[in-house]
């Protein structure tokens, strides 16, 4: 194993998470916060850390059906995140629009707009599912480093 691969393996143990709320009802955001914070499902075990600035992010967690109102802002925010990055869509809204699917004001599914790598369905998803999604995202991110 050459030294660069070794360094990449080390680097993959430090995925920083950034949350984009694209018009979510806040249910998934509460799940994300509790997944990170409560003792039972601590994501810091995986080296994850929620960061305040999109410039520090590695894994992007998007919640919500992407309302028209936030679409441009969310796209701009996504571009602010330096490569390599991985996108995780959390909840059923990014996949289909969920309970908002017939609304004129949403742009779901969001994979028309963002390169989604991992989908975590659920309304809201269970913490185990979110952790599983983050773990899959880390594997994808490792390959992109």
């Amino acid at each position, binding site marked *: 194993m050459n030294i660069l691969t070794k360094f990449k393996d080390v680097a993959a*143990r430090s995925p920083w998470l950034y949350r984009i709320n694209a018009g979510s009802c806040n249910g998934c955001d509460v799940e994300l916060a509790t997944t990170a*914070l409560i*003792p039972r499902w601590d994501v*810091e075990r995986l*080296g994850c850390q929620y*960061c*305040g600035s999109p410039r*520090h992010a590695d894994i992007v967690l998007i919640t919500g059906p992407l309302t028209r109102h936030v679409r441009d802002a969310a796209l701009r925010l996504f571009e602010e995140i330096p490569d390599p990055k991985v996108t995780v869509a959390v909840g059923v809204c990014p996949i289909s629009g969920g309970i908002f699917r017939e609304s004129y004001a949403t742009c779901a599914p969001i994979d028309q707009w963002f390169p989604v790598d991992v989908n975590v369905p659920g309304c809201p998803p269970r913490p185990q599912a979110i952790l599983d999604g983050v773990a899959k995202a880390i594997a994808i991110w490792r390959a992109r480093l």
Partner: protein
Amino acid sequence: MSTQAALLVSVLAFPGGLFALALGLALKGADRRFAARLQGRVGPPLLQPIYDLVKLGFKRTMVPLTATSQLVFLVTPLVALVSMLYAAALIPVPGLPAPSPQLGNVLVLVYLLAIPGVALMVAGSVSGSTYGAIGFSREMALMLAYEGPIVLVVAAVALRTGAAEGQFAVLSLTEIVRHQQVHGANLFDPVLWPALIAFVFFYPANLGIVPFDIPEAETEVLEGPLVEYSGPALGLFKLMSAVKSVVVLGLGLTLFFPLVPEGPLGLVVWLLEDFVLMLIGVTAVRVGIGRMRIDQAVAFFLKWPLVAAIASLAVVVVV
């Protein structure tokens, strides 16, 4: 030539440089792990700060279009780190050769301790980001509040030591340590207790730790001055804050309690003291309480630590 080489080694490797970097990163790792344990979580691996740095090395450094100067934006983190490496070389570490008097005394150290704060201010304002600008103004307000007390604390210790040694003031850190080894630690000198209190409050404010992490509050101003930094440039700021925690801890131990056994055992005891002070004095406090508002913090510093430091200095001068 050989003295210059020795100075270079002391700044880059021992006791500044690599030694301070390793100790600082270990302190950060222990801090994160202990904070998680206090909250009932498992927490990250102890080497997490090192993983973070390696990761940042793989990321891209982006310079925002709004930055007023690319050069200043990229050089600022380097200036901050170098000033802290220099400061780490000034700290007398027991069991290691004493820092060379050519490097400077405690006054130089106080000046060097101000540089990372100024660097953060420059970084925040040069980035052109609104959040950076807010972080800049908060950092400046906080710095104006805590710089006064620390200068007075250092002056109180220097004058006290000087009075006992028959001089006006002793500014060499090595001399201050030697004086305490003969006459007992300043920790047990009631005249300097107010100065110690002021120093205890200076510590989290200088390091940007809860309750004084107001300039870099993630949830309020998106990490303030650091908002536009990514990749290796951000890594330099992380390294700077790791070394800074060692420097300020080392300064506190030097000024107030440098009594350790002779030789290598002294080094071990000194390292243990660092970890214990970090975990009890910083981690437990930061987990236990919330963040102050900037106006509360400034009012607080201009009230209690400043008064304590002035009181200590006045008593030292009078006695």
